[in-house]
């Protein structure tokens, strides 16, 4: 009974976390879409990208929040899909954990990258 309940509590918390991160992402993605449309005018070059982001702490914080929200939101979504397509168990936990790690590590690396512009 205790095990069933703690599973249930976990499911409820995951649902909550996914919705809260979704709200954060709603704001981040809206802003990001505007940035995308602004940035792609007349083509996209590395200098243009880095010219905007390098040394810009506001962008760095914004994108790190974005990465963290993705890190919560996407793996939970993927886990749901996998559990329903295949059965509950190892595969869904493993693949969503891998996605979570990829997003966190690659995402933070990317944020550091565009903030420093290679001047590390």
């Amino acid at each position, binding site marked *: 009974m205790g095990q*069933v*309940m703690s*599973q*249930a*509590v976990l*499911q*409820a*918390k995951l*649902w*909550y976390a996914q*919705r809260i991160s979704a709200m954060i992402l709603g704001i981040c993605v809206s802003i990001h879409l505007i940035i995308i449309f602004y940035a792609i005018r007349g083509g996209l070059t590395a200098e243009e990208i880095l010219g905007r982001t390098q040394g810009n702490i506001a962008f760095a914080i914004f994108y790190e929040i974005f990465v963290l929200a993705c890190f919560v939101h996407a793996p939970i979504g993927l886990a749901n899909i996998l559990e*329903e397509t295949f059965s*509950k168990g190892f595969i869904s936990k493993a693949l969503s954990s891998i996605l979570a790690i990829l997003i966190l590590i690659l995402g933070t690396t990317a944020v550091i990258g565009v903030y420093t512009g290679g001047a590390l």
Partner: protein
Amino acid sequence: MLDMGFNINYFFISQKIIFDLFFTIYRYNELMSNTDLKVKVWRGAQEGEFVEYLVPRNPNQTVLDVVTFIQRKLDPTLSYRFACRVGMCGSCAMTVNGVARWTCRTHVSQIVEGDSLEIAPLNNLPVIKDLATDMREFFNKWKGAVGFFKGDKTRHDDFARVEPQSPERQLANAGIECIGCGVCYSSCEVVQSRPNYLGPAALNRAWTLTNDVRDVQQLDRLRAVAGDEGCHACHTQGSCTERCPKKLEPTASIAGLKKLVARAAVRGSKWGKL
């Protein structure tokens, strides 16, 4: 200024008018036709086949009329359920052309495809015979979701007072007309893919009871709908709300439960910790 001017409903009303117009023109042939209907009916149990019957058309014919005709005039071995035949009891629910409906309230002219109809038992439920399904798991899940009332007053106590305008009573009112027909349950893809999922009807009933201030099992109920197979498995596909013949909205009830259970899991509820 805004009340008689732009109203979002005009947008939907005009879409509906245009759609109905096209629908009538498109179905003109079906509406005017008088050739026999070719009705495929599921015969057998979990294994079986569709058997085709030819049924004469009649004005204002419902699908229940068709099934009754087949059983009385063509094949007395056909098994099916019905009771009131006027859209009150929900016994006649079947899958018609792939969609769960009350057959007594479904006019043939509205859903016939050319001359064809396909009638099958309700989905997601085991088939006993032909068009009759075993509803036990449906009602067992109702119990499983603590979808029944238990109070702590006796006949010696005063009446319980429930304020009709209170938010809880309003929320309960929105969902209590359910008569357990099973249409929502058999329309739900999550029920199909998670066999232990409690389902829209059970969760809807649990929600109405969550809003019954007299009930004393709220913590048990929260725990019952919180599990892996509880409210959080719902993906808001909306088939239940789309198909409910009483126009109930299990999606709303389940959304209410999701919030309640999530808050209870994180912060505890007014009835105790999950």
